[in-house]
């Protein structure tokens, strides 16, 4: 071990090297290859050549802006619903969970224990044309509003419902963590100073839970915007998102340059939206 004593400064780098090399080789370098691919022209049969083909990007936006907009729209709606739906539960577990907290949290992550595709297929059963959900909505006269031609499956509603469900734990967990860390004495102090329960929530609890809201919305929105499984299994071709297009261009049509440029447009849009969002909320500790 004399080596370590003589070269103490080296130890952290030796610990970092294998993992960071792996991430470099199989995460960063591939992004470079993707960028390179996105500026090529040609076809799979005659081969691709690098020609600084910026028009791939303009073509991607011109031909598929509808898919891009739909992806961000679905992702935004699903994120908003997930936030509203899970905030009260995260609040209840954090402040009233008592010794059952860990068990209740287990309930929140339970959907993750069922294979993603299988739980999405279960929603096919739940939202099926003659199922309970369709019948109930019909009786409440909401089917015309939420469905299409008396159906829920293969509509935008089903896709958004699937996305909301599948990424809900990503919202609920960070919300719980930030609410759990709040010192209950701060809320008591607000009430002692004659704040009503509502005022205490709006002025003390909610602002203190903002880091959880930011983390939860990002953790939900980012995977939701790139998702294609829910649109594929629960929607119709009219509900396809940009992920469906990228997937089919890469794996079915082998139009690699177009697919690569779309991937970059997707990533760039997400990064820009995250930055705007982070500025608007004013949270600097995004990375934790």
């Amino acid at each position, binding site marked *: *071990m004399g080596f370590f004593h003589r070269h103490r400064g080296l130890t952290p780098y030796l610990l970092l090297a294998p993992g960071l090399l792996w991430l470099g080789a199989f995460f960063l370098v591939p992004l470079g290859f993707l960028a390179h691919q996105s500026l090529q022209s040609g076809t799979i049969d005659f081969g691709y050549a690098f020609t600084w083909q910026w028009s791939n990007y303009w073509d991607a936006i011109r031909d598929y802006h509808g898919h891009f907009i739909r992806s961000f729209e679905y992702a935004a709606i699903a994120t908003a619903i997930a936030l509203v739906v899970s905030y009260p539960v995260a609040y209840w577990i954090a402040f009233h969970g008592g010794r059952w907290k860990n*068990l209740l949290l287990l309930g929140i992550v*339970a959907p993750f224990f069922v294979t993603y595709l299988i739980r999405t297929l279960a929603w096919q059963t739940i939202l099926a044309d003659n199922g309970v959900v369709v019948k109930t909505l019909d009786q409440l006269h909401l089917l015309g509003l939420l469905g299409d031609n008396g159906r829920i499956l293969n509509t935008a509603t089903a896709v958004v419902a699937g996305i909301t469900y599948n990424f809900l734990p990503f919202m609920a967990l960070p919300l719980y963590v930030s609410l759990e860390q709040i010192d209950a004495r701060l809320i008591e102090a607000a009430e002692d100073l004659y704040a009503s329960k509502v005022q205490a929530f709006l002025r003390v609890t909610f602002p203190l839970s903002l880091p959880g809201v930011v983390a939860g919305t990002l953790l939900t929105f980012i995977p939701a915007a*790139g998702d294609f499984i829910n649109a594929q299994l629960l929607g119709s071709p009219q509900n396809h998102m940009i992920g469906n297009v990228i997937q089919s261009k*890469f794996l079915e049509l082998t139009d690699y340059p177009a697919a690569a440029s779309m991937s970059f447009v997707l990533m760039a849009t997400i990064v820009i939206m995250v930055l705007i969002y982070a500025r608007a909320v004013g949270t600097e500790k995004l990375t934790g």
Partner: protein
Amino acid sequence: MSTVAIEAKRPRRSVVAAAWALVKRFALPVYALLFFAYLLLPIVIVIVFSFNNPTGRFNYVWQGFTLDNWRYWDGVPGIRDAIFLSLEIALVASVIATALGTMIALALVRYGFRGRGSTNILIFLPLSTPEIVLGASLLTLFLNITFVQFGFWTILIAHVMFCISFAVVTVKARLVGFDRHLEEAAMDLGANELTTFRKVTLPLIAPAIIASLLLCFAISIDDFVVTYFNAGSEVTFPLFVWGAARVGAPAQVNVIGTMIFLVALVLMLVNVLIQWRRESQAAA
């Protein structure tokens, strides 16, 4: 206290006040109950339909109870190979990712070094990149290296890549509360660095390592998107489900889904029980 005072002053409104108090008291728990029912509903459907006896190819409508799907869980061609490939990859990927991730976490928590900020960003980036971009970029890399054969190794490389960040985050979270005096004490008593690591550090961070192994295993066995881009003609269990869903997934898919769910649930329940015991021991 204030509600009691108001009730005493205005006895006429006591019924309304009592009803309102009841609503205030039970609104959140009732809502939470509905929330959990919603979360668990698809899981119940998956389990129930693993006992369904479908007449056609579609396992969507309840036809009748049978145990055959469980008895012949590998009765569908390809499902056995798919689940074993998934288990094998999840096992190897979680061990490699946890080893690499633990080392990074140790370096980040215990040492000051140049490039710490960029290391943190490099760990954070894969977590905030949509899976489809991770899968697509890795596919482009492998397509450009002509000697690469898509299959076991490309899937393994991909799974280790997206698991490392989760491993780092998990282990780092527990290392932060670690008492370094214990290691210094061991060194003062003449242990060298390797012995200190083996006898002191490793046992103390063992729970974090186990947590990371379980998390990586769960993420790997469930991954569809990145695997779909990099599997070639190999079929993992999620890929099998995807293929089967196009023509109607057999009930055996539900059987294996239920088994994975039950194993994960039992492991997590054990974890909760251990924490309960620790808390009550600490309280006693």
